[in-house]
C-alpha cells in the first residue's frame, strides 16, 4: 500500500533544481541557529558567554548572500526553483517565494536590526541571570520568519511566516519569568496575537474562497471584476484587521504598552522595530500584490486606521511617565505614519511601498537607538521612569547627545533621519493631489507637533533638570551596548544628512508578484 503511495507521488513531482543562492540567507540562518543550539547543548555553561557572539555572527554571515544577491541584481526577481538555467525567474511553484530588490532591502533591515538586538541583549541577559542561549535561538527563529515573510507572495507562507515571527516573541516576552509584569506581558501578547491570527485566517479564508488559490497574484486576478463585492470586502477587512494587531494600529493596539513595559527591554526593542516591520511587510505584500484593484475598499479603511492610530497613539503618549510606555505609544503613532502611504496607494503603489520601506528603515535605526539608551540608563537608575532621566547630561553627556539625536529624529526635525522618513510619507500623500491624501498629510503634520512635545519633554529632563537622587556617578557602558548606540547614531545621522543613501535602495522597491 505504501509502495503505491511513493510511486504515485514520485511520478507526479518533477523537481526542478533549487536556486540555492536565492534562499541562502534563510538557509544560513537556519543552519547557523541549529549550529548554535548544538554547540550550546554539547558544551553547556562553558560556551555560554560565546552564544550571543555566535548568534550575531550568524546574522552577519546571513547578510552576505543578501548583499551578493543585491549586487547580482540582473537576475531579479528570482524564485525558489530553477527550471531553465538561463531563466532563473520562471518556475512552477514560484508564488510562495520571490526574491526581488524589495525583499532584499527588508532582509538586510531585519538582519541588521537583529544584530543590534543581540548587542542590546548580551549584557541584559547575562547579568539578569536568564536562560540566554535559548533566547538567542528564539530570536534567530523569529528573524528567519521575517526573512521568509519578505519573500512570501502566498497566503499560506505569509501566515506561517507571521506565526514564526510571533510565537518566539510570545515566549520571549515572558522571559523574565520571575517578574509578574513579564508574565502579564507574555500572556497578553499571546492572547491578543492568537486572536489576531484567528481573524487574519478568517479573512484569508474568504479571499481564498473567492479566488480558489492562495497565491496573491491569483487572488488579484480573481477579484479584478471591476466592482467590489461584499464578500471580497469582508475578506479584505478581516485580513487588514489581522495585520492591524501585528502592527499595533489603533484600536488593535491594546496589547502593546503592557507588553512593551513588562517584556525584557531588548525584546521590547525587537517587538517595536523588527516584529512591527514584519507586520508591515505582510500588509504591503497583500495590499500591493493581491489588492491593487480594490483600492476603493482598502484605501478608506486604512485611511481611518492611519488617522486614528497616529492621533490616539500620540495623545496617550503625552500622558505617560514611563519612558518605555511612552516609546510604546509613540511607536503606535509612528505606525500610523507608516500606514498613511497605503491609504493612497492606488496607481502609485511603487511609491507608496518605497515610502513605507524608507520609513521602516529609518524608524528601525532611531527607535533601536532610543531603546539602547533606555537599556544603558536602566543599568544605573534601575528605572525607566521619565523623572529618573533628570540630570543625565551631567553624568553621561555623550549618551544624552545620542538620545537627543534619536528624539529629534523621531520628532522629524532635520538634519537627522526622521525628517526624511516623514518627507517621503508627505510626498506620497500629496503626490496624487487627492483631498484624502492631503487631509491625511495635514493630520500627520499636526500629530508630529504633538509628538514633538513629549519627545522634547524627555530631552528637557536629560539636559535641564537635576538628577532626582543627586547621584552623578558616571555610567559604565559595556562595549556591546556602546557599539549598538554607535551604529544607530551613525545610521540616524547618515539617513538624514545624505538621504540618497536610503532612497537609492528604496527607490528600486517594487513588489514583484509570484507567478
Amino acid at each position, binding site marked *: 500500500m505504501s509502495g503505491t503511495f511513493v510511486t*504515485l*507521488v514520485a511520478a*507526479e*513531482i518533477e523537481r526542478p533544481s533549487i536556486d540555492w543562492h536565492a*534562499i541562502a540567507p534563510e538557509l544560513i540562518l*537556519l543552519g547557523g541557529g541549529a549550529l548554535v543550539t548544538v554547540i550550546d547543548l554539547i558544551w553547556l555553561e562553558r560556551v555560554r558567554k560565546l552564544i550571543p557572539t555566535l548568534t550575531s555572527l550568524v546574522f552577519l554571515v546571513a547578510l552576505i548572500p543578501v548583499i551578493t544577491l543585491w549586487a547580482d541584481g540582473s537576475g531579479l526577481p528570482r524564485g*525558489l526553483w530553477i527550471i531553465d538555467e538561463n531563466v532563473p525567474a520562471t518556475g*512552477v511553484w514560484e*508564488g*510562495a*517565494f520571490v526574491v526581488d530588490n524589495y525583499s532584499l532591502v527588508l532582509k538586510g533591515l531585519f538582519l541588521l536590526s537583529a544584530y543590534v538586538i543581540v548587542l542590546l541583549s548580551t549584557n541584559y541577559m547575562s547579568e*539578569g541571570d536568564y536562560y540566554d542561549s*535559548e533566547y538567542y*535561538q*528564539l530570536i534567530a*527563529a523569529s528573524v*528567519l*520568519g521575517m526573512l521568509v515573510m519578505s519573500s512570501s507572495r*502566498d497566503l*499560506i*507562507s505569509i*501566515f*506561517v*511566516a507571521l*506565526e*514564526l515571527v510571533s*510565537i*518566539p516573541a510570545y515566549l*520571549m516576552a*515572558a*522571559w*523574565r519569568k*520571575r*517578574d*509578574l*509584569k*513579564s508574565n502579564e506581558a*507574555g500572556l497578553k501578547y499571546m492572547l491578543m496575537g492568537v486572536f489576531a491570527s484567528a481573524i487574519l485566517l478568517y479573512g484569508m479564508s474568504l479571499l481564498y*474562497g*473567492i*479566488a*480558489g*488559490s492562495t497565491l496573491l497574484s491569483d487572488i488579484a486576478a*480573481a*477579484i479584478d*471584476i471591476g466592482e467590489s*463585492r*461584499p464578500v471580497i*470586502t*469582508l475578506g479584505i477587512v478581516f485580513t487588514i484587521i489581522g495585520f492591524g494587531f501585528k502592527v499595533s494600529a489603533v484600536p488593535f493596539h491594546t496589547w502593546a504598552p503592557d507588553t512593551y*513595559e513588562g517584556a*525584557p*527591554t531588548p525584546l521590547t526593542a525587537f517587538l517595536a522595530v523588527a516584529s512591527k516591520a514584519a507586520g508591515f511587510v505582510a500588509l504591503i505584500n497583500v495590499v500591493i500584490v493581491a489588492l491593487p484593484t480594490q483600492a476603493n475598499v482598502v484605501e478608506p479603511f486604512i485611511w481611518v486606521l492611519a488617522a486614528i492610530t497616529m492621533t490616539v497613539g500620540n495623545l496617550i503618549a503625552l500622558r505617560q511617565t*514611563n519612558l*518605555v510606555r511612552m516609546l510604546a505609544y509613540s511607536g503606535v503613532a509612528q505606525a500610523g505614519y507608516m500606514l498613511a502611504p497605503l491609504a493612497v496607494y492606488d496607481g502609485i503603489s511603487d511609491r507608496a511601498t518605497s515610502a513605507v520601506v524608507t520609513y521602516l528603515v529609518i524608524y528601525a535605526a532611531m527607535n533601536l537607538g532610543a531603546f539602547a539608551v533606555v537599556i544603558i540608563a*536602566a*543599568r544605573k537608575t*534601575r*528605572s*525607566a521612569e521619565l523623572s529618573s532621566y533628570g540630570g543625565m547630561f551631567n553624568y553621561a553627556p555623550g549618551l544624552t547627545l545620542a538620545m537627543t539625536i534619536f528624539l529629534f529624529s523621531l520628532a522629524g526635525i532635520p538634519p537627522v533621519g526622521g525628517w526624511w522618513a516623514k518627507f517621503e510619507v508627505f510626498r506620497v500623500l500629496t503626490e496624487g493631489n487627492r483631498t484624502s491624501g492631503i487631509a491625511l498629510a495635514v493630520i500627520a503634520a499636526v500629530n508630529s507637533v504633538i509628538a514633538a512635545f513629549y519627545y522634547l519633554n524627555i530631552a528637557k529632563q536629560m539636559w535641564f533638570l537635576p538628577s532626582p537622587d543627586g547621584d552623578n556617578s558616571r555610567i559604565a557602558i559595556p562595549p556591546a551596548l556602546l557599539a549598538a548606540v554607535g551604529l544607530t547614531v551613525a545610521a540616524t545621522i547618515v539617513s538624514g544628512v545624505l538621504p540618497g543613501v536610503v532612497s537609492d535602495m528604496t527607490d528600486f522597491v517594487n513588489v514583484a508578484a509570484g507567478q
Partner: protein
Amino acid sequence: MMELIVFVISAAIVLGGALGVILFRNPVHAALSLIASFFGVAVLFVSQEAHFLALVQVVVYGGAIVVLFLFVIMLLGVDREEDITEEPFEGQRVSALVSGVLIFAMLMAGIFLSGRTGDDAGDFGPAAISGSSGQVVPLTEEQDVVQLGHDLFTRNILAFEATGLLLTIATVGAVVLVRNRGAEDLVVDEPGTSSR
C-alpha cells in the same frame, strides 16, 4: 436536500458545542462540549468530501488536544466550578456582545448582499480562475491525501519546513518557560524597566 439537512444538524452541534464551552461552569464540561463542536466540524468536512481533514479533525483535535486539555484540568485540580457572573474586565461582556453582533451583521450583509453568484461557480469564484492557476483539481476520494502531500512538498514546501521549525522552537521555548530552576519565586523587583 440531504446535504442541507446534514448541514443544519451539524451546524447546530457546532454552535451548541461552542456555546457550551463558554457557558458551562465546570471546566471539564466545557472541554467535553468542545469535543462536540469539533465533531460537528468534522461532519461538515465529510459533507464537503474532505475526508482526510475530517479524520484529522477527529483524531488530532477531538482526540489528542481536548484529551490534553482534560489532562491538564484534572492534574492541576481546577475542575471546580468557576463563578462566571463576575466580569474579568469592566464592560467586557457588553463589548464582546457588541462586537459579536457587529461581526455577525457584517457576515450576514456579506452573504446576502453578494447574491447567489457563488454557488454554481458563477461569474467569479474558483472556476473563473482555474485556468490561470491550474492547481484546482476536483478531488476524488483516493487522491485526497496524495493531493495534500503533493501540495505540501511542492508549492508550500517552504511554509511546511517553516512550520517544522516553528513547532521545534515553540517546544524549546515552552520547556524553558515552564522549567523551574531552583527556588525561583515571583518577584516584582527585577533589574530592567519594571517600576511599580
